[in-house]
């Protein structure tokens, strides 16, 4: 499942929603990304997330499909927020559930690594000096490339 939204989400509620009433799940992995108040030396006061409506959903759905092909998943959820956020706010949630922990853990890492390099979201940070668009990091591309997807 894919959700793009401006509202916050509740990781516990989402994990519960996936597991409640099921007895075939052995492991649930999750990752929550949050806004940090600094990036290197800059103090960050806020951040705005822009996206490409339509393409974002397509890319995330394709990522989910790819994860379900590579690993045996019982459920999979990606939530990504857009709009203005402040330090401490949640940005993204990935939850994967499987019979065995390796599938859940690996697919969760895969999804967040690929989301960072494939999904059309852009961050603009605000600090005391004004605002600037965040530049893509080579290490994000490296992290994604270890999964050998094109």
């Amino acid at each position, binding site marked *: 499942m894919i959700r793009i939204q401006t509202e916050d989400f509740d990781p516990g509620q989402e994990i519960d929603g996936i597991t409640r009433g099921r007895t075939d799940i052995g492991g649930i992995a999750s990752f929550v*990304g949050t806004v940090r108040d600094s990036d290197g030396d800059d103090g960050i006061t806020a951040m705005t*997330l*822009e*996206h*490409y409506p*339509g*393409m974002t959903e*397509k890319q995330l759905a394709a990522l989910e499909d790819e994860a379900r092909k590579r690993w045996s998943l019982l459920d999979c959820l990606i939530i*990504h927020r857009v709009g203005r956020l402040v330090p401490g706010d949640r*940005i*993204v949630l990935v939850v994967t559930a499987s019979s065995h922990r390796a599938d859940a853990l690996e697919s969760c890492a895969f999804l*967040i690594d690929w*989301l*960072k*390099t*494939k*999904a*059309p*979201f*852009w*961050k*603009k940070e605000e600090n005391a000096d004004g605002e600037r*668009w*965040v*530049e*893509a*990091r080579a290490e994000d591309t490296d992290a994604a490339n270890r999964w050998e997807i094109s």
Partner: protein
Amino acid sequence: MKILYFAWLRTRVGTAEETLTLPSNITEVGAMLSWLQGQSPKHESALADLSVVRVAVNQEYARAGDPVSDQDEVALFPPVTGG
């Protein structure tokens, strides 16, 4: 052709969306980018370094050799930074 700009490309070109008529002799993404650079000084400046410009045609990532036509929705944006 509908062209969308995101993030700092939107700021530099000065618009989020514009409609231009793609000459019929331009059929590939690479040629389209060269043509776009010539549209105005702002386009030229925004698209000066194509190594930091990503292209999507009809909401799918596209490369220089991929086909493009006047009926397509094209989007230009910097490398993504979500998550």
